[in-house]
């Protein structure tokens, strides 16, 4: 019995010694990567602004940034969100962000060649087609309310259907931040969904 006890204790000691050479430290917070979960389903965009992807300079571009639209851990939920755009020629993607604020998203995506306008005016401005590059930010819900989100996404879809010649870039600003921490944790950090509308299926 003594021998067994001694053996066990010494084994524990040896294990602990060996463990020093193995990285055992549990990370306080592991940051899951959306690209692993969504690989193969959707296009993965890096951190560069999406408008760089649009090479066809003859067409006008309308960008809509959707506040608090994130990439959920549950792939079905995103499929639902994207599903709203099925009727329009589309390309679905997820987009990497460096930071999690609306101001960062706007700063990163809306560059000099874009004119920032209120979303409500986008329809009439597109009709006038004076400016080739328009951008707007829309705030369906700051807490991640999905009904409000879907309503806004439908509005964007209708706009895209009305102007099939215009390329629409729809993307989230960041995951829902101002909701409860539980809601927030259901979404990937620093990833947002992105939809390109009115582009041919094989991409740009």
């Amino acid at each position, binding site marked *: 019995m003594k021998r067994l006890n001694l053996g066990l204790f010494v084994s524990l000691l040896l294990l*602990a010694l060996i463990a020093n050479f193995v990285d055992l430290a549990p990370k306080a917070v592991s940051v899951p990567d959306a690209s692993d979960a969504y690989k193969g389903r959707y296009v993965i965009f890096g951190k560069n602004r999406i408008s760089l992807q649009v090479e066809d300079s003859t067409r006008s571009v309308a960008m809509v940034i959707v506040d608090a639209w994130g990439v959920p851990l549950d792939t079905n939920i995103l499929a639902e969100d994207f599903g709203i755009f099925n009727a329009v020629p589309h390309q679905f993607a997820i987009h990497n962000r460096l930071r999690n604020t609306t101001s960062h998203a706007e700063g990163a995506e809306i560059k000099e060649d874009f004119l920032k306008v209120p979303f409500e005016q986008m329809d009439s401005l597109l009709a006038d087609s004076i400016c080739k590059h328009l951008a707007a930010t829309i705030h369906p819900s700051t807490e991640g309310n999905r009904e409000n989100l879907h309503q806004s996404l439908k509005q964007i879809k209708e706009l895209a259907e009305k102007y099939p010649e215009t390329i629409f870039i729809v993307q989230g600003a960041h995951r829902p931040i101002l909701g409860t921490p539980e809601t927030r944790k259901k979404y990937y950090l620093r990833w947002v969904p992105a939809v390109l509308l009115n582009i041919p299926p094989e991409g740009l």
Partner: protein
Amino acid sequence: MSFSVCRKIFGRPLAQAFCINAVMLVLSFLFGAKYSSLDDYFMHSVLTGAYGGEYDVHLYFINVVYGYFLWPFYKLIPSFGWYSFFETLAMFASFTAISYVLLQKLRGRGGLLFTILTVACVSPEFYFHVAFTQCAAALTAAGFLLLVVGGKDDNKKQLVIAVLMMAAGSVFRREMFLLVVPAIALSLGIVLLRERKIHKSLWVALLCCFAVVGAFKEVNALHYLSDGYDYYAAYQPVRSMYGDGAFYDDDDVLDELEERSGNSRDYRYLKSWYYYDKDVFSIDSLKSMGEVIHRNAFVPNYAKFPVAIFAWISLKLGNPIVWCWLILCLAIIAFSHKRNGAVPWLSVALLGIPYAYLLLVNRVVDHVESGIWLYAVVFVIPFLEVGNIYTQKYGSRFCKAIILISIVGFALPIVMQKITEYANPLELTKTIPAEHAEYVSFFDYAQNHPEDVFVLPFRRYKNLAKSIESTYKAVTPGSWNNIFSTGYWNIYLPSMEGELHKRGVDNVFRDIVNENVYVMNDDRGMGFKPFYFDHYHQKLKIDTVQSFGSLQLLKYQLKGNAE
């Protein structure tokens, strides 16, 4: 003196314990036991009235009882560092008690051997560092050991000393004392299981212990109810979230603050220890930001705790205190009565409890860890019933190993310290030695300009203390009258506020534009311009008015006026 008389005196366990530890005590005075964290220096400074010149017992982290205890000594010899002296003496008393128990239980060479092992491997960490948390741990551990041993033998003298020591431990850091409670419970449980009863005197001792600890707590609380000490105390838990707390996701908090208000700058200032603005960073405003912080707190991953505990033990294997514990555990398994076989495993479980608690509050700190390991050592000692270890199989080989480990355990920290000193002299004090002189010349300048106010960023404030501190000298009363930090735990101390008011300052940050207020440059480039614009809607200009090597004194002024 004849040999037999010597033998009579030094043959007694108490005398032996005394002598062994006297050697350590002398060594610690000779080699300069140092403050191992500035908190002790600043508490010492509060005590001797570095701000305002009046003796002040409101140390906050240490119970006021210690302040009252030291008062007659400071009255006698005001310039001696009694605060540090008694902390060191407390180590001496604690380890003498622990040594005495070991020598008493294991007579002859075996007892001497285990005592030398414990003192050589465990005590240097405590003797050479003057730190209130470790002081608390040492006193509590010694008291706990005496409680268990005295309780088993129904030795009333030992029980009285046990209660006194544990109560004293709680004075230095109540939380450290509380961490021993699981060990007390487990030890009592084992005694109950074996003896089927617990002596009345042990119950009485326990009751007295908790009564005294509770009474000390109440007496302490009474001192923080009014006269500005209430704000001083209430501010502590609120500001510590920013400076000390790491239980939340920094990035998430920044994001949320920016999304909500568009301004995360205040949060950044808070985290850089800039908060001595009583209007902008009042308790109420900090509390509301605190709500955002709590929303973003990390969720403990309980499943990972066992692995974390194991990883921690494995990490600590380089520490001589742990070697001592390992040797004691091995001795118990190999040479003790087989009923003690489970003790080392119980000890591992006991290690896990306080460590898990530290993980939960996200405050795994050096000093507390040493304390937890000391509790583990002291928990297993009563079960070290090995008899005459030399006569047992492999006994003498084991003893030789102990001698070797004791020598290495004692020498290792000293050698490591010397190596780091040699290889990287900057690391030793974390300030470049040249900067020492710079801080000293700044300090002299400040003493010569008593009407001026000097505001130092937190790191500078601490480095200044490091450059002028001397462990066994009292901090000169009034020597810090005109030197303040941008944020530290001692802000809002009534005597500090008094000194500010005397010099025309009511709100430190708002009043940096006053004629007599100077700010020291921040080593990381933080400045007041953005803050002042955000909250006082004024633009500032900066001029350098004085230099001390790399340290600069800046004068902030309102831009409008300068034209």
